[in-house]
């Protein structure tokens, strides 16, 4: 083997290692996540890992809880401060998310859309509801784990839409 081939092989391997070490890092709940984060922010939607948005976005979201994506989600000021402190301290998301805070929906970030290119067609399905309903496909979403290699197969919503499924049911529409 020539030294050039070795170099190429080494670079490829290094690239894979870097990719792998970065892959699982985004979307994990820090150990210090307060219980109040789950009780206040995970009733209407799943708890979103704080590193999925930059601090500017969380600040805006926490400042505008009275108009929280169409719903008034105001909490006591003391609780608001505690949650905001946690979110800002653990915020993240640099690549594929606008740092200026103009990304307020995780599902609208470039990063999310790149990651979900093939899954997006299922989001409007009645049994999924929306792209923010992470737990439908990511069965460990509530623990902050989104790293499964395979999304659960043969659930109802998939059978209805997957044209390659043998057991395809007609779409109720």
């Amino acid at each position, binding site marked *: 083997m020539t030294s050039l081939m070795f170099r190429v092989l080494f670079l490829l391997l290094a690239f894979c290692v870097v990719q792998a070490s970065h892959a699982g890092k985004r979307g994990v709940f820090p150990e210090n996540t307060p219980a109040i984060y789950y009780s206040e922010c995970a*009733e*209407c*939607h*799943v708890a979103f890992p704080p590193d999925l948005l930059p601090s500017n976005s969380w600040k805006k979201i926490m400042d505008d809880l009275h108009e929280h*994506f*169409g*719903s*008034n*989600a105001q909490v006591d000021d003391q609780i608001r401060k505690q949650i905001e402190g946690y979110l800002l301290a653990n915020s993240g998301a640099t690549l594929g998310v606008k740092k200026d805070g103009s990304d307020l929906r995780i599902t609208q970030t470039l990063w999310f859309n790149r990651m979900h290119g093939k899954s997006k067609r299922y989001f409007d399905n009645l*049994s*999924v*509801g*929306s792209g*923010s*309903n992470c*737990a*439908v496909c990511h069965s460990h979403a509530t623990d902050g784990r989104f790293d499964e290699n395979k999304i659960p197969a043969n659930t109802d919503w998939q059978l209805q839409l997957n044209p390659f499924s043998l057991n395809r049911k007609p779409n109720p529409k």
Partner: protein
Amino acid sequence: MKKLTLFMGLATFGFVQFAFATTPQELLKSYEAQSSKASTSRGEQFFNSKHGKEWSCASCHENPPNRDSKHIITGKVIKPLAPNVNADRFVDQAKVEKWFKRNCNDVVGRECTAQEKADVLSWLMTVK
């Protein structure tokens, strides 16, 4: 000393639990005391109607609310609301008030009155 701290901690915890713990029957009584006798039929109608806004209670909790339902926007699963089916419902006063406040705001555009709460709760208690 450690034991004493632990005991005091447990005692405080017990007290806090006691202070917020309630039952659907007790809650209904306290809402009725602030208004008048509850009407299950009024409660059922209130729960299933829209009140000038986009959603009714049933938009997320479904009718009858005796099974898992889905949040109309996010799709997240909501556990059954009827206390006969879900023993965790209407047993924590602070939680009940918090969600009446939030959800009435979404559905009615204001906080619910004690009468409305009494009516809805009395109907929910009949749902099997």
